[in-house]
C-alpha cells in the first residue's frame, strides 16, 4: 500500500513539474517569437558582419532580435536550417550548391563577404627543400585531409587540377575542420586543405616545419545567407531589418577595424595574432554577386562528375534560388549579378 502511494505521489509530482516547465517555456517563447530570428553560423572570422552587428546592437536598433547559434562549420548550420531548427543559416556556397542539387528548396538573400582571398589553402609538412606543390604531391602515398561537403573539398579538386595531379593519386581523408591542425601536427597526414582560422592555426603550430601552398586564381569560398521561402513570406520585415543591421556592421568595420577585430576575438576566442594575419583574407561586404552563380554551377558540375551515375544529371539554375528584393531594399547597388 505504501509503495503504491509513494509511486502515485512521485508520478504526480513529475507530471506537475513537466507541465509547469513546458508552460514556462511557452510563455517565454510567445513574448520574443514575433521579433526574433534564429541564425546558425560557423564560428569563424568570416562571420564578422554578423558578430559586429550583434555586438553593436545594430540588429536591435533596426527592430529585430537575433538569436545566434554556433556551429563548427557552416554546412552543419545549413543542415540544422533544413531540418527546421533555424530561420537563417549562414554557410559556404558549396553546401548550398550540393543541397539544391539534391532537391532541397530554399533561397539565398545575400552574401556576408564579397569575396575571400586565399582563405582556403593547403598547409603541409615541409619535406626537404621542396617548395613546389606539384613536386610535393607527386610523391607516392601522400595523405591530405579536407572537409568534405564544403568549400575545402571543392578547393582541393581545383587545386589538384591546377597542378595536374590526379586526386586518385592522393589519399583524401574526410575530417572535421577543428581536428585538422592536430592531425597535421601529429604527422598522420602530410597536408590539410582547409579555411581559416584552422589553416592559420596549423601554420602557426608547424612554424618552419610547415609550408603553405596557395594559388591565387583558383576558387576561394563565399559565405551566403540561406532562408526558406516561408520565412520570407512570414517574416519579411524582420529579414529586411536583419540585412540592414548587417549593412550597418559593414560600414562600422570599414571605419573601425581595430574595434571590429576585438569583437571577432571575443566571439571566436582566437588570438590577436591570428585575427591580424587572416583579416586580409576577407572582403566584408554585404552583396550578391556573379561569383556566387559561377561557383555554384561549377560545383554542381563537379558533384555530378564525382558521383557515378547520380540520379540528378540536370544542373539547377542557381539564379532561381536568389532572392534579391530584400537586399535591393537596403541598397540596390549591393546586387551585382549579370
Amino acid at each position, binding site marked *: 500500500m505504501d509503495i503504491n502511494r509513494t509511486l502515485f505521489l512521485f508520478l504526480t509530482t513529475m507530471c506537475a513539474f513537466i507541465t509547469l516547465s513546458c508552460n514556462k517555456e511557452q510563455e517565454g517563447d510567445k513574448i520574443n517569437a514575433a521579433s526574433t530570428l534564429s541564425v546558425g553560423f560557423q564560428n569563424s572570422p568570416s562571420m564578422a558582419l554578423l558578430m559586429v552587428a550583434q555586438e553593436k546592437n545594430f540588429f536591435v536598433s533596426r527592430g529585430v532580435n537575433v538569436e545566434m547559434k554556433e556551429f563548427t562549420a557552416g554546412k552543419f548550420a545549413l543542415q540544422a536550417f533544413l531540418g527546421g531548427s533555424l530561420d537563417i543559416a549562414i554557410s559556404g556556397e558549396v553546401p548550398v550548391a550540393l543541397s539544391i542539387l539534391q532537391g532541397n528548396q530554399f533561397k539565398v538573400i545575400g552574401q556576408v563577404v564579397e569575396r575571400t582571398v586565399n582563405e582556403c589553402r593547403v598547409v603541409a609538412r615541409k619535406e626537404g627543400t621542396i617548395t613546389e606543390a606539384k613536386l610535393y604531391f607527386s610523391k607516392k602515398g601522400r595523405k591530405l585531409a579536407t572537409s*568534405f*561537403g564544403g568549400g575545402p573539398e571543392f578547393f582541393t579538386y581545383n587545386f589538384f587540377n591546377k597542378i595536374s595531379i590526379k586526386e586518385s593519386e592522393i589519399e583524401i581523408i574526410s575530417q572535421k575542420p577543428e581536428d585538422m591542425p592536430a592531425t597535421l601536427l601529429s*604527422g*598522420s597526414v602530410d597536408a590539410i586543405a582547409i579555411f581559416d582560422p584552422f589553416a592559420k592555426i596549423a601554420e602557426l603550430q608547424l612554424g618552419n616545419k610547415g609550408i603553405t601552398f596557395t594559388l591565387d586564381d583558383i576558387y576561394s569560398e563565399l559565405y551566403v545567407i540561406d532562408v526558406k521561402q516561408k520565412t520570407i513570406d512570414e517574416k519579411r520585415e524582420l529579414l529586411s531589418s536583419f540585412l540592414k543591421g548587417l549593412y550597418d556592421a559593414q560600414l562600422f568595420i570599414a571605419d573601425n577595424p581595430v574595434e571590429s577585430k576585438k569583437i571577432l576575438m571575443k566571439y571566436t576566442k582566437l588570438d590577436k595574432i591570428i585575427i591580424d594575419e587572416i583579416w586580409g583574407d576577407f572582403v566584408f561586404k554585404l552583396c550578391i554577386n556573379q561569383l556566387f552563380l559561377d561557383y555554384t554551377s561549377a560545383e554542381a558540375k563537379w558533384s555530378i562528375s564525382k558521383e557515378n551515375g547520380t540520379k540528378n544529371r540536370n544542373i539547377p539554375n542557381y539564379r532561381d534560388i536568389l532572392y534579391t528584393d530584400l537586399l535591393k531594399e537596403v541598397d540596390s547597388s549591393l546586387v551585382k549579378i549579370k
Partner: protein
Amino acid sequence: MSRPYSTLQRYFQRILPSLIFFIIIWESLVKLNIIDKAIFPSLGSVASALYLWFSSGEMARDIIASSWRVALGLVIGTFLGIAVGFLTGRIKFTNILLGPIIQMIRSLPPVAIIPLIIIWFGIGDTAKIFSISFAVFFPNWINTHIGAENIPITYLWCAKLFKANKVKIFLRVMLPASAQHIIAGIRTGIPIAFIMVYVSELAGASSGLGYQISISHLAYRIDKMIAALIVLGFLGGISDYLITSVIKNIFPWTKLQDNRL
C-alpha cells in the same frame, strides 16, 4: 539441433510481414509527399544508391575497411576485458588497485576521448582500432568481473579436491563457470564496436562505412547515407548472429539453458 539455413529461413518468415508493412508505409510517405523526398528519399532511391555503390566497387572496399577494424578492435578489447575481468574478479589485490580507476574511466563516453586519441595516435587505423578496443573493453570487463566474482565456491572446492592445477582450474572451471556472463559482455561489445568504427571514421578516414555515411551526409545524398546505414546495421546484426552461433558451438551447454518460449 536445427540447421543454420532453416533457422535463417524461419527468421525471415517471421519478419516478412513486418518488413512488407514497413516498406508500404515508407513508400506511401514519400510518394504522397507527406515527407519531402529531399530529406527522406524513397525506398527505390535507396535501392538504386545501394546498387550503384555496390557496382562501383566502393561498397566492398568500405565493408572490408570497416570490418577488419571492427574485428581487430573487438578481438583486442574483448580479450583484454576478459583477462582483466578475471584478474579483478578473482584477486582482491588487483581489484583494489585497478577496480576504482577502471570504474571511473568506464563512465566516460568513449566518443568523448576521440579528440585525445587523434592527438596520441593520429587518424590512422591504429587510432581507430584503439578507440574500438577501448570502448569494447568495458562491457567485457564488467561482465567478466561479475561472472568471475560469482563463481560458486563449491566448483572451486571440487577442483581443489581433485588436485587440479591452476591452469586446469582456470580453463576447465573458472572460464566455463563465467561463460554466460562473458557471452553477455561479448554481445554487448559488438554493437559498441560498430558505433565506434563509425565515430572513429568520422574523425578522419578515406574508406569505411562510417566514412561513406559521413560524406554522403555532407553531400546531401540522403539516399546513399541510408543505404550505408542499412549495410552497417546489417553487418552488426549478422556479426552478433555469427558470433553467438560460434559461441554456442564452443559452449554447447549454453543452448540447453535457453528456456524461451
